[in-house]
């Protein structure tokens, strides 16, 4: 997780927003975190170098990228929704974030290599039918082209190696695929494209699940007279457009 907005922090901690603000202030006082209002909605909090060291996380400290705020928020909402599900807790699911995956790759991400937004790992002995599986999680806010989405789905479904593994192990014929399934969480605007891309996969489509993004995944609408004017002129689903304007571009494989 690159950063978290105040309402999500409150949800993660299970406290009110006021209390979450106080907690974040405590972290700031110890120089473990930084907070700032980076976009519409509540303030964002992210870990500093000292905070990452205290948490034992080997990541490079950086504030969340402005262009990715909407996407980061959507992925955080997906994680919170998933972790709140009783079956997830019962199965002992383990969320492996994109940041962790990228950290393992150590800057060796190939230009066309796609890294999912997260992975969910299930222990072998979990009391669920999908025990032992590894899932890729994708949050889609805007539609890419169907062919590009199909290519990403194929890449995720055929990968055999862990992220950061030797290049020769990324895709080894005969080995079991790394991701047993890919879960797509889509905004309304992206859903049709993702569904078309899945249909193009053939038999592998059974391993793609498509769901809507959970409530609270969208960025709050910007305030101010200009934003109000824009909202009045916009169609009803414009709450997503605000998010879409800041998310990663279609060709971005980060």
């Amino acid at each position: 997780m690159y950063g978290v907005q105040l309402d999500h922090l409150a949800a993660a901690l299970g406290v009110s927003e006021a209390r979450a603000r106080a907690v974040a202030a405590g972290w700031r006082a110890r120089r473990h975190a930084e907070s700032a209002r980076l976009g519409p909605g509540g303030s964002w909090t992210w870990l500093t170098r000292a905070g990452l060291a205290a948490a034992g996380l080997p990541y490079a400290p950086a504030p969340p990228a402005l262009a990715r705020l909407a996407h980061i928020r959507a992925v955080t909402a997906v994680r919170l929704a998933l972790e709140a599900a009783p079956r997830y807790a019962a199965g002992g699911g383990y969320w492996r974030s994109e940041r962790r995956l990228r950290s393992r790759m150590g800057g060796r991400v190939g230009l066309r290599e796609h890294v999912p937004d997260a992975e969910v790992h299930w222990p072998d002995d979990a009391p669920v039918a999908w025990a032992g599986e590894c899932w890729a999680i994708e949050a889609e806010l805007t539609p890419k082209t169907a062919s590009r989405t199909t290519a990403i789905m194929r890449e995720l479904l055929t990968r055999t190696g862990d992220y950061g593994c030797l290049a020769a192990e990324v895709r080894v014929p005969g080995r079991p695929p790394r991701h047993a399934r890919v879960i797509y969480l889509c905004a309304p605007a992206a859903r049709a494209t993702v569904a078309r891309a899945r249909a193009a996969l053939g038999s592998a489509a059974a391993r793609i699940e498509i769901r809507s993004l959970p409530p609270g995944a969208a960025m709050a609408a910007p305030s101010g007279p200009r934003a109000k004017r824009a909202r009045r002129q916009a169609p009803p689903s414009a709450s997503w457009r605000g998010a879409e304007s800041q998310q990663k571009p279609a060709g971005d494989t980060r």
Partner: protein
Amino acid sequence: MTRRAAGRRPGLAVGRAAFLAARILAAAALVVAAAPASLVAGLGVAVAWRAGWPPGRLYRAALCSLPMLVVWLAATAAATRSASQVAEAPYLAWLAMWHRGAAGSYPAAAAVIAPAAIPAGLAAGGVCWAYRVRSMATGSGGLAPDSAAAFDRRQWRNQARSAQARIAAPGAVPLTTRNDDLAAGAVIRAVGHPARRIASIPYARMRSHQVVIGTSGTGKTTLLLRLWAGFMATALRRNAAGRGGPPLLVVLDCKGGADARRIADRVRRVLRVAGARSTAIWPDEAGLSLWALPPAQLITTLVDLIEHGTGSAAYYADVLEAVVGLAVEAPGGPPGSTADFLARLDSGWLTIAYASGHHDAELALVRSAARQIGDIALRFRTLFRRLGGGLDGPGRFGDSDAWYCILEGTAEISVAEAQARALVDLLASYAAYPPPGPGPSGGRREILLAVDEFSAVSRRLPVWQLYERARSLGLAVQISAQSWAGLAAGEDERYRIAASANGGVWLLRTPRPEPVAALAGTRQVTETTRRLLRAGVWAHQGTSRMRLDPVVDPALIRALDVGQAAYIYRGGVTYVQVKRLVAPPAALQARRVAPTRPAAGHMEARQPPPAPPAGQQPPPRPHPQPAPPDVGPLLDEAFGAEPSS
């Protein structure tokens, strides 16, 4: 004896009894009068006994509760503005405590006296507990002559139980501490080392040589995993802070077999949590290239891979070295693969290679060794067939953060020895000539070479040579063995390895710990016939003398439980309850297919599938893909039910 003296004796005895009774009564009265402090002291002693604490722990607790007393006195001073009132405050509180107690208001009575009674009681408890421990240590305490030994056994049990409880608490033992120390577990007991709650060793000791000895099933792998993960996490953190090069962990598992594969999987998962980006498992999943060695080193390594004798056999060794040298240093450059090298071991090939007219000496050498070249080629062909393709791969140690190398030391000792030799030479070469890299370390990595079950390859792996030049290469060596005898072939070499272990020796349960225990040295113990009258007061009758006791008790090592280890360093020992690392579930495993029972005998079923011919890849097997289980209920719970389309 006079009649007068005889008549005086009963009177003396009665007088002594009366004096003793008066002393007991006075002591009891003092205990009752100081009831709150006595109660705290009694509780403190009971807890210290039960948890196996040293007296210092009670003193520290008393110190920690001092601020309460200071605040209370300050509040009294602020309220009364009188120094005499402050001086009288404890007495007045004591009086108030009795009054409120008499009135039946016990909580109020406790609250009134607590600021004064708790620090005083804890300090008094510390003194009493120190007296008890000291009297037992000198053998002057207890009712029976063997009370001291029984007390020590009970204390060990209490300390071990307390340490187990400490590591069971979630988050109580972090992998690393803030000042780059590696936490191994909870301290059970320390002799000559500071008695801390958490057993941690500085990172610098992981950069020195270490020895780990323990029979199988004693928790050796758990300890090693913890040390490796701690090394990886700390080194990565230091590297991120610009205080050292990136880490490289190389584990040589010299047992091999299915067990080694299981451990390799566990290591990979544990190291992943510690921050390692990738763990290569050799030779199952990754290969290393022997042919990346510099030519001179390659010749030495190739010659050492072939077992050759001394004495009259030295002639053959010389011919072997000359022919290998000719093949490696041929004008076209060193060989790039096993096939290339084997092709060069041919008198025709060598004659053509050196036929340019500038290599007359080499040509003469080829001619004189022509009769032996065929034999040498045959030996190398046999050797490389047995070694497999693991040393012919394209990889280098720098490709991964950690390498887990599985050597089949149980099944094929000679092959494991040759593999170990080649891998160590490759690593030494990598450490000596690191590839250029960014940052202040310039590509130089902080390397830890861990050789597990060293006995399997100790005959031909000159680790002590490596020991001596390892520090300058930035390479630390960690040797583990099941027993002292398993450390090396000869006694001299064993002592050499153990004595070079600047980073300390980890000793788990082993049947013969005496040689290692002796390395910890002795400590001075006072043996006395003087009587301990009361705390700190000894009778003047009797004598004392200094005795040297071993720091490490071999009997205690033999009785260590699973997960308990003794860490010997600089003449001291810390007994540790090792905290087990729990790795997240395997990431790459797909749903496992239950093994089918073979129709033929089970010995046939154990045979590995036939290897493909050299240079030919096995055909990819189609992976069965059963219908995936329905995850709809989980997704419905998390993201809401999907509207039916």
